[in-house]
């Protein structure tokens, strides 16, 4: 199967990250894994775009990062939704659904 157009993925990255973090705090590598698993391997986040996207959401105040020690003592940085981010996640999700429904509608009868 041909890979998904990167521009499509780029446009939906924000809603994907917000939706994912609704499930709880996650760190970068975990987010990559979860996305790959939940999309049956169709969506493969490039880390090169992941971290800038996370930092942008953090600057917008939708998520916040925090450090937490792993079992082996090393640190990793987790991200979680802020209150504003939760609202944004709901809004983005609804918006996305309207969008996909609209696209579906067009595709169905076109």
């Amino acid at each position, binding site marked *: 199967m041909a890979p998904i157009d990167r521009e499509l993925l780029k446009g939906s990255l924000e809603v994907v990250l917000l939706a994912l973090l609704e499930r709880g705090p996650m*760190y*970068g*590598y975990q987010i990559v894994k979860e996305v790959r698993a939940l999309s049956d391997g169709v969506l493969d986040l*490039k*880390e090169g775009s992941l971290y*800038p996207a996370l*930092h942008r959401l953090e600057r917008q105040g939708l998520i916040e990062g925090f450090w937490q020690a792993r079992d*082996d003592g090393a640190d*990793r*940085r987790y991200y979680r939704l802020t209150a504003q981010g939760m609202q944004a996640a709901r809004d983005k999700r609804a918006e996305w659904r309207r969008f996909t429904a609209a696209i579906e509608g067009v595709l169905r009868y076109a």
Partner: protein
Amino acid sequence: MPDSPFARYLRQIDSRLRMLPLAQRELIRRELTAHLEDAATEQQVDPADTAFQAAVIRQLGPAPKLAANLGAVHGAIPLLWWWMAQFAGAFGGGLGIFGGMFAVGLSQDFGLAGLLAIVLLICAGALGVHGVALREHQPTRGYTIVVGCGLVLTAGGALIWHGPLAHSFDLLAGAMVLLSGSLMLLSATTHPVIARRRRAHKALLATVALALVSFVAPFSYLPNPLGMYYLVRGGYRFQPNTWLMNGFATIGTNPAPLVAARLDQLIGQTGLDPLDANVSLQSYTLQQVITDAGGGMNYVDAKLQYANGRTQRYRIPITQFGWQPRVEITGIDRLLTEHRALPGLVPAQYGAPVRLGRATRLPLDSAAQQLFVDDVFADAPLQQLEWAGNGRQLFFIKAAALWSVDIRSGYAQRIAEGVHGFALSADAQSIAWTQSIPPQGGGAWQYRVIVRDQHSGTQRAIGEADRPIIASAADGVYFLHDSVLWRAAWGTGPAEQLGQLPDAGALYADDVVLALAPDGQRVAYRCGSDLCLADTNGKNAVRIALGFEAPAQPGVSPPDAPRGPQPTAGPADFAQPHLATLHLTWRADGAQLAMTSAATDTRGVPELRIVSRAGVVVQQIQVATDGSLEAPQWAADNRLLVLTAYPANGRRIVAVELASSAVFDLSQPHWDAFASLMPDTRTLLLWNGRGGFWQAPLLEAHTP
């Protein structure tokens, strides 16, 4: 893992993000390291495995791209810009310190406050450097650059603002300080607070900043492109009393404070242009400044208001040059010269036996009026000003052009160019002038004599002279060639030889003086350092010794004397005073001749002699203690002679009463005027090279 692929990868990213705060860079480094370790844990490999590290790096993407994406989020600027900003900040700070040291004159003018200002300047520059150093490790701490920049700009602005009036003004220091401030400002614009803003915001900020530095003082004192353009091209116009101006274009050339200081001194005064002879100046407003980048003339347009409510817009020329000392001359400086009483000159005040009546302005067409505006010094009088007998037309030479002006209509006509001297017929219907002919084969200059009939407009060459001066009498125009006097009748006929004038050629061309008696029978001329009179055929010659050093023997030239075609007639001993100027005017009836003479130094005195037609000195009057004299004019039925004298390095219009030999000073404070007697011989025409003509009656004690 100091030399592992992943460590190098992190260093590459970090070096591209060095304009970001240190904490932010550290966070990115730790997060990417944690990513590597998480991936290693997940895949159960050693994170130090170079192959594994290479795989993770491929997943993360090339270091430049990842750094650029992260930098875009955190407000980083291109690395080249950042380096340029750092350099600008460091250089600007250093320049501020250096420029501050050059402003030492501030302490001379403002004492302790000036000294504090210098210290402030130097500290401000140091703050700029400090800010750059801090930002190297902690970009958000670079705010000290902004503080330094503000201080430097304030101090620099003060230098510029107060400079023209303070002795401490040093353009170099001011320019360095302002440039320093500009560089620090540029450096400050790369601060993350600004860099993080959206592109549209940054564009808006840049536009606003450009508009401020281009059009709004004091921001516009910063070096800016528009100001640079005007400095190079010149001709910048601005209104001095508003904030809307490009200050940089005016640095060192803004004459407004200087002109204001001068005009302040003229408030409440009366005088000639731009003052009013009868109504005092009440107030003024500076409306426009026009600067010239070439270092030439600047202009200030002022609106002058007089006590009677009349207003006029007046353009004041200014020339400024040099730094130490700074030379600044305005077109109204001469009006401020102290009018001192001089020995031997009786002030012609009210009640004096000879004085001037109320001066009134002569209405003149504005275009014609412009003819009488001289340069900034207003000391280039119209040359050889002569009246037509009907008193309506005025003829003169200005900038080697011969002009006629109808005084009533203001109609001005340029008659000829390249004119050396001219003569009028009694009815002013014919006018003759000389134009130079370049020497052929190393010979002497010759002068073509041309006569024009004003009525028909035709003109013809009537001969050649070897002296530029010509003279007129009732019967024709006279000129010299090889010491021979020639005459051409007005209207028709070729020139004819009259006779040889003894010693008439023993002078340099420009020193020749020639005056014909009105009847054309007798001629007076300068012969060496003396006065000679003769019949026009050269007979009955009389020589009147004026007491100056005799001319040198033929063939003996003083070492520094100018060389002419004839054997020198200059003095043999230049340590002795010799005759500098000599002017002759026949009385209208031809019975007497008035002669003024002046010496080349203060040991000779300026004198007026009245000489009979036969050549006898009947009266000798010392006009002033020193200085030159202009041609005398017979006035008031020949009871008076009016002339311009230059005593004490100044200029005065004087009247000599022949009956008493008294000399009256007709000049008034704030006049700076030249004068010409009008054909009625009882009215003086006055002008001062600043635009207008005035006339004032010449009053004597018996005049009602």
